[in-house]
């Protein structure tokens, strides 16, 4: 097995990977920007290398600096975490060329699933249910024809988009004519690619995703689903496992479908297939994320596994140790993403954390990248900690999360803890009546005025 892993990331996910590496007896190298010299991942790794200034493009996204850091420290594997370079096929290829084991999927899989149109076509050909949609749009007249064929309302999507970016809901032909060129220009500016297509627009879908693992022996495991319907502008805020919206039968059937599809695709490492669940109970493929995800701990808690450990085993060529039949979830898990932001305006709130008391006790897990006295820099994701709970039932998990949030004290910055508390106290949430529109409907006026955050 490789012996020294460089973690090409920062914050809680860097710590998450460092911890599993340490448990496996692997040495760790943190890379960090100048502003992260005192960050927790820098402090907890066995070695730390400064790779550039605070701007991500010159440090955490700067491939030559990361590779050079691996060279001078003698690292023989790289874990990319999520975000930054985790879905960048050039980075994975460069690692391979430099003799570094990339702990993640193959570059061609990243390319395949990274392009939304090819991903949807692939999913369809693999037998996954897909939302009605169209081929790429040629021009505005072609757009009108295609949209009318599909039936309004439709979703106009950028082929190069993802994570909820590059999308417009269109309700009429007139609306389409008004927005089309803007959408094309936006797509070109944001993704360097102005290809657009349509999908059927669902008014009030739930977001359901299946966690998979594939090994080098060609085995695929499906580790149940997560529900991530609580979103603000397509950014997930609170996730849970399992979903109350799936019956055992739906879960079993989709697990079989997903396993067969991913085996045929030859998928390697951890990945997530995202679906929309409509009000009639139909799951349709949304996208495939070829990486570990922020919300992976809820799956770990209900399944009793360590997904980073499995990723490392897979990269090392070991077969999965999981039982052949689908694992069944035990209890219920909820994760709250604690962001450094104003709970009302969602404006980022970087700064120094003057006091920190994280919750503890039965069924509480804390994955944090910060410490009291430490700084949350303005340059990166505002996620400062993930509070994750596990209890026998969903009702108990909600009560436990409320308790855990009430114990948590993060001084010196504002956080979205009050928002989480409002969500957890809401009767519709308690009853499991949620959709991706939940937050919009909770605060309609706010959603309209809040600044866009990408």
């Amino acid at each position, binding site marked *: 097995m490789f012996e020294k892993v460089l973690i090409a990331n920062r914050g809680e996910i860097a710590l998450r990977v460092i911890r599993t590496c340490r448990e496996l007896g692997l040495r760790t190298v943190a890379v960090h920007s100048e502003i992260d010299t005192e960050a927790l991942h820098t402090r907890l*790794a066995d070695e*730390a290398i*400064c790779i550039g200034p605070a701007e991500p493009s010159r440090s955490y996204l700067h491939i030559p*600096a990361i590779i050079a850091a691996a060279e001078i420290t003698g690292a023989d594997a790289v874990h990319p975490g999520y975000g930054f370079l985790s879905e960048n096929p050039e980075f994975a290829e460069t690692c391979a060329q*430099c003799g570094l084991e990339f702990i993640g999927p193959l570059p061609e899989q990243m390319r395949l699933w990274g392009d939304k149109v090819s991903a949807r076509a692939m999913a369809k050909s693999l037998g996954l249910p897909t939302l009605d949609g169209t081929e790429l749009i040629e021009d505005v007249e072609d757009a009108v024809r295609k949209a009318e064929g599909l039936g309004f309302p439709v979703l106009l999507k950028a082929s190069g988009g993802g994570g909820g970016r590059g999308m417009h809901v269109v309700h009429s032909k007139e609306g389409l004519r008004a927005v089309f060129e803007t959408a094309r220009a936006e797509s070109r500016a944001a993704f360097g690619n102005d290809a657009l297509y349509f999908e059927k627009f669902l008014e009030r879908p739930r977001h359901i995703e299946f966690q998979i693992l594939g090994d080098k022996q060609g085995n695929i495991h499906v580790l149940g689903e997560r529900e991530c319907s609580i979103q603000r502008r397509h950014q997930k805020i609170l996730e849970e496992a399992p979903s109350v919206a799936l019956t055992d039968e739906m879960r079993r059937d989709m697990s079989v479908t997903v396993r067969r599809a991913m085996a045929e695709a030859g998928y390697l490492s951890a990945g997530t297939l995202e679906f929309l669940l409509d009000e009639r109970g139909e799951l349709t493929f949304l996208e495939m994320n070829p990486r570990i995800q922020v919300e992976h701990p809820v799956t770990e808690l209900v399944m009793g596994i360590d997904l980073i450990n499995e990723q490392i085993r897979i990269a090392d060529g070991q077969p999965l140790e999981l039982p052949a039949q689908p694992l069944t979830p035990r209890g219920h898990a909820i994760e709250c993403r604690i962001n450094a932001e104003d709970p009302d305006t969602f404006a980022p709130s970087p700064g120094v*954390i003057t006091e920190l008391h994280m919750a503890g006790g039965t069924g509480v897990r804390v994955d944090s990248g910060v*410490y*009291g*006295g430490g700084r949350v820099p303005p340059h990166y994701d505002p996620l400062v900690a993930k509070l994750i709970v596990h209890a026998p039932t969903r009702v108990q998990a909600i009560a436990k999360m409320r308790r855990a949030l009430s114990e948590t004290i993060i001084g010196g910055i504002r956080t979205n803890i009050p928002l989480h508390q409002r969500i957890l106290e809401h009767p519709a949430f308690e009853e499991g009546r949620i959709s991706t529109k939940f937050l919009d409907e909770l605060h309609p006026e706010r959603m309209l005025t809040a600044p866009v955050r990408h």
Partner: protein
Amino acid sequence: MKLDLDQLRELIRLLDEANLTEIEVEHDDDRIRVRRDPAPLPAAAPVESVAPVTAQGPEPVGVSSAPEDDDGAYITSPFVGTFYRAPSPDGDPFVDVGDSVVQGQVLCIVEAMKLMNEIEAEAAGTIVEVLVENGKPVEYGDRLFRIEIG
């Protein structure tokens, strides 16, 4: 009432030197007391965490984007990589202590991903100190040379 501020300052100096918390002097009808409560030092430390004992390896040294301080100016590394003082293993160093350099003159190489990145002087001056050994790894921002500008 007349204050003897110098005397007061002397007392404060004494308080500091001897690391006291209080001095009180009484003479006839005069009395002076200076007092400093023990600083809440422990609590001033990082609140939840400090670097654990397991953190090892190359310490990020003096990473400074402002290359000048009391001790002069520094040439810092713009790359992570391996530091070489000469163009080839048996070649002469590009520069040595005491050498005058002109702006744009190559001072060393930082190798990364098999690429030899030549590091040039940003201004003319005299090399005062070479701060990294030949063949050693350097981080972004590490000081490579101390230089006297001009």
